[in-house]
């Protein structure tokens, strides 16, 4: 029995092994992407129509897994292109020499969008669509709970939003990382963290993938989500009852495409990049299920009414200048701080925040300066960060997160220090609020 079963399995293997391998043919180009089918399908169709004989093979992986995959398969690449949102992922690939240089033929694409350069200055990757960060909300949820509509990041820290907000963890979502970094750069390190932590006290959940947030907002499980714009626009395009706003402190960042070093079909890969940046390729971005902002200003002439245009809309001009180098240096530190101070301490942080909201509510009815001072101290304790801006990008702190190359502090040690810093501070803040509550009664 065992032997015959094993034999049958072997035979089955042999007969099936032949089938998929036969697919290999010359007119092909393989792309690794984090984009959903709704984005890739229309572009694939348009590309194949414009380039008959070439078929586009799409491999879906999330951004981190895609980077890891290219790294593990570098000895003999089977893929030609990497195609994803987060510019820092492309920086990582470039620094690991996993991309190759190319000069696209496309014309009419400016150097910058907002304050952000569209293409890699060294020619390793190219922006093809722009995205900004903001707040989306479910109108039914907000209506049913009689909640306000937010305009700025700070609004989300107000009492009515308690337990109604969702965000993805910046460590897992390249786009949320940029949002957090934008706030930190726009408002400054200390004030930025205060804003983030004040908001965080109102979080209902912190999801572990970017799409978890719009999914929760779309289905009405949470009211508000901190997301990249196209999540909201494509949800609107599919008919979900959601709205979106860009706060003043935000930035527009390009989503990119790059050709893999030693790609097996380099020539076809170049054709794809050229197509994506051509007017024909840019127009596909306007489809309701995609809804990204083209980088070719001329294409906006064909956009439906009310489509945001970062090249003419004055809001986008005032948006924050984004320092890629600064962000790149402290990526791991910022993400780990967020997780250790917020994600893994969320219950404590929420419970203090809730009491603060209650006390502040009472103080509105009957003021008490002493209680107000205590609340202010409590807020300062909550907002405190265990490292300064200089330390965050200093060599010794960064070394702890860079893997096993240098001796020094271990990641786990530093994390434990930061976690207990936050835990102590939240406990102290809680005590201050309790004191204030006694005074306010």
């Amino acid at each position, binding site marked *: 029995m065992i032997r015959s079963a094993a034999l049958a399995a072997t035979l089955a293997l042999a007969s099936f092994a032949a089938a998929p391998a036969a697919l290999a043919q010359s007119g092909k180009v393989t792309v690794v992407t984090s984009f959903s089918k709704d984005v890739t399908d229309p572009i694939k169709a348009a590309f194949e129509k414009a380039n008959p004989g070439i078929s586009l093979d799409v491999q879906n992986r999330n951004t981190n897994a895609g980077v890891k995959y290219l790294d593990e398969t570098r000895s003999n690449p089977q893929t030609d292109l990497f195609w994803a949102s987060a510019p820092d992922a492309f920086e990582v690939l470039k620094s690991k020499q996993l991309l190759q240089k190319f000069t696209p033929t496309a014309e009419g694409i400016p150097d910058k969008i907002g304050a952000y350069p569209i293409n890699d200055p060294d020619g390793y990757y190219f922006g093809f669509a722009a995205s900004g960060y903001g707040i989306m909300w*479910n109108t039914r949820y907000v209506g049913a709970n009689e909640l306000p509509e937010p305009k700025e990041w700070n609004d989300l820290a107000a009492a009515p939003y308690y337990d109604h907000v969702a965000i993805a963890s910046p460590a897992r979502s390249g786009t949320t990382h940029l949002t957090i970094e934008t706030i930190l750069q726009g408002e400054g390190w200390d004030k930025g963290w205060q804003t983030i932590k004040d908001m965080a006290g109102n979080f209902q959940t912190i999801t572990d993938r970017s799409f978890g947030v719009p999914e929760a907002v779309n289905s009405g499980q949470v009211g508000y989500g901190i997301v990249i714009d196209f999540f909201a626009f494509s949800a609107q395009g599919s008919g979900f009852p959601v709205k979106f706003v860009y706060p003043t402190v935000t930035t527009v960042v390009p989503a990119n495409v790059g050709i893999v070093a030693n790609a097996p079909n380099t020539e076809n890969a170049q054709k794809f990049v050229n197509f994506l940046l051509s007017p024909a390729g840019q127009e596909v971005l306007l489809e309701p299920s995609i809804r990204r902002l083209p980088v070719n200003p001329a294409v906006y002439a064909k956009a439906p009414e009310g489509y945001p245009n970062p090249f003419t809309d004055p809001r986008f001009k005032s948006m924050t200048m984004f320092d890629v180098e600064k962000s790149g240096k402290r990526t791991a530190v910022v993400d780990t701080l967020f997780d250790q101070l917020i994600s893994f301490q969320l219950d404590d942080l929420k419970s203090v925040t809730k009491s603060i909201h209650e006390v502040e509510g009472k103080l509105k009815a009957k003021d008490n300066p002493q209680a107000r001072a205590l609340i202010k101290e409590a807020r300062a304790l909550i907002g405190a960060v265990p490292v300064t801006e200089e330390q965050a990008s200093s060599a010794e702190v960064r070394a702890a997160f860079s893997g096993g190359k240098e001796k020094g502090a271990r990641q786990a040690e530093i994390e434990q220090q930061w976690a207990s810093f936050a835990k102590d501070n939240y406990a102290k803040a809680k005590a201050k609020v309790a004191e204030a509550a006694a005074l306010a009664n």
Partner: protein
Amino acid sequence: MSLAFTQAPARRWRVPGTTGQIALALGLAAFLLAFLLVPVGSVIYVAFTEKGSGSFTLINFADFFRTDLFMRSFWNSAYVSAMTVVLASLFALPLAYITTRFEFRGALIIQTLGFVPLIMPPFVGAVAMQLLFGRNGSVNLLLNEYFGFRIPFMEGLNGVIFVQAIHYFPFILINLSAALRNIDRSMEEAAQNLGSSGMRMFRRIVLPLAMPGYVAGASLVFVKVFDDLATPLLLNVKDMLAPQAYLRVTSIGLTDPMGYVIAVVLIVVSVLAMWVSALALRGRDYATTQRGGGGLAKRTMRPWEQVVAYGVVGLILALVLAPHLGLLLLSFATIWSFSPLPDGFTVAHYARVFGESSVYIKNTLIYASIAGLIDVVVGTAIAYLVLRTKLIGRHWLDWAATAALAVPGVVLGIGYLRTFYDIRLPDGTPLATMWIVLVIALAIRRLPYALRACYAALQQISVSLEEAAENLGATKPRTVRRIVVPLMMGGILAGFVTSFATAAVELSATLMLVQSNADAPLAYGLYVFMQSAAGRGPGAALGVIAVVLVAACTLLSQYIIDRNQKTTGAAR
């Protein structure tokens, strides 16, 4: 796996086994080494290296115990796993007992339906559950409107316990049912002749004899929940061990040893749990010699008993199948947002997936059946070696295979890329890009399920049956083929079905190893759809197709078990 059973000559050296058994053991060891230990080792050795120098150290484990977050996660995981076993038993015991002990119309359907929760397609399943049981799911929206309160089904650790119990109780159901069917009627008759009946007989005779099946199921549930990361992550519970390992390995901790330290802790706890469950059964004999009536006598129920039985079964099924009902609704829904029911219904989602899903379906069926087949062959072989031979180190095979349960899919996926990517096929493509590597990864991930089922089945067979066959001149391989395997058939099929069904919806290793759309299974197709707002409906439709497909295959194998038992029963 072409391990030939060489004819064992009668000469016996001091070696405690026949050459055939030794060859089999070595073959299995090589298989596990090549496809589990080496790939996983290539990733997690980092746990034992010192930062900076790369030399051997245990400091990282000290860090693990010094970190509050990890200790909190550890105890949370242990608590959730234990409570899930309790709740899952509450779901599984009545279903298994009623359907195997009584003449119960629709027993076959119930056995199949009770199994369906195991087939929860990734992502869509989560969305469907949130839409039903979430904070603003159908149930809570209605409760809030009419009664002004909500029940936090899906919040915190208790939410994890609730969802895990619904998801994994079939492990207990399927193993316990197989064990109950395997009890010989003569045992029951003997008890009746001695004046025992009713609950007393159940407590003293039936349940103890079915213990191997229950323990196999319960230990699987415990370990699976301990190692599972999908459910905690879907509920955004992060302070449990498996999510901690996953979150680190997939983000900043990729090069940091801590993620792998947690993986090692997971593996150690899993193996320990299996060892404890084996200990619990040790020193007792669960085997029955006679093979008479083919399973327990089925009693007809009195009318009031019928009412109670149908009520209980209906209630449990309604609860555990609710997520699938939600999935079905979602697949026909236009927009479903903050409302008890969708705004409207459409079949457009099915039309959209119809064209492209056939390749996914074909791949899934091929991959999952081969993986299931590999699992039962390896599982039966390991169970046989552990229970029937005295080979030195045979338990290591069992433990190594069990450890697979605790290896995060991502770690296995990266390990496979590392180990097999540089092995080139004649045409220059790397071995790791062949779809068969994905199948082996699936088989390794699901091996523990099949192994436990085969193990429990073999525990219930008395060794004297084999001795009798050998006394009559049968060789060892012939005895295995003609006596052991046929008697284990129920357990083997249970193992196949579990491996097959869960492999069909496996995602994490799949995502790392899928090389092209043409080679992708259903779970990958689902992932691709579930990244966008417009993909939710088609994703749900694909999920429904996956569930129906796997359930149909399950029904088929249940039917075969039933028919087999009837024919073997009748033949005697």
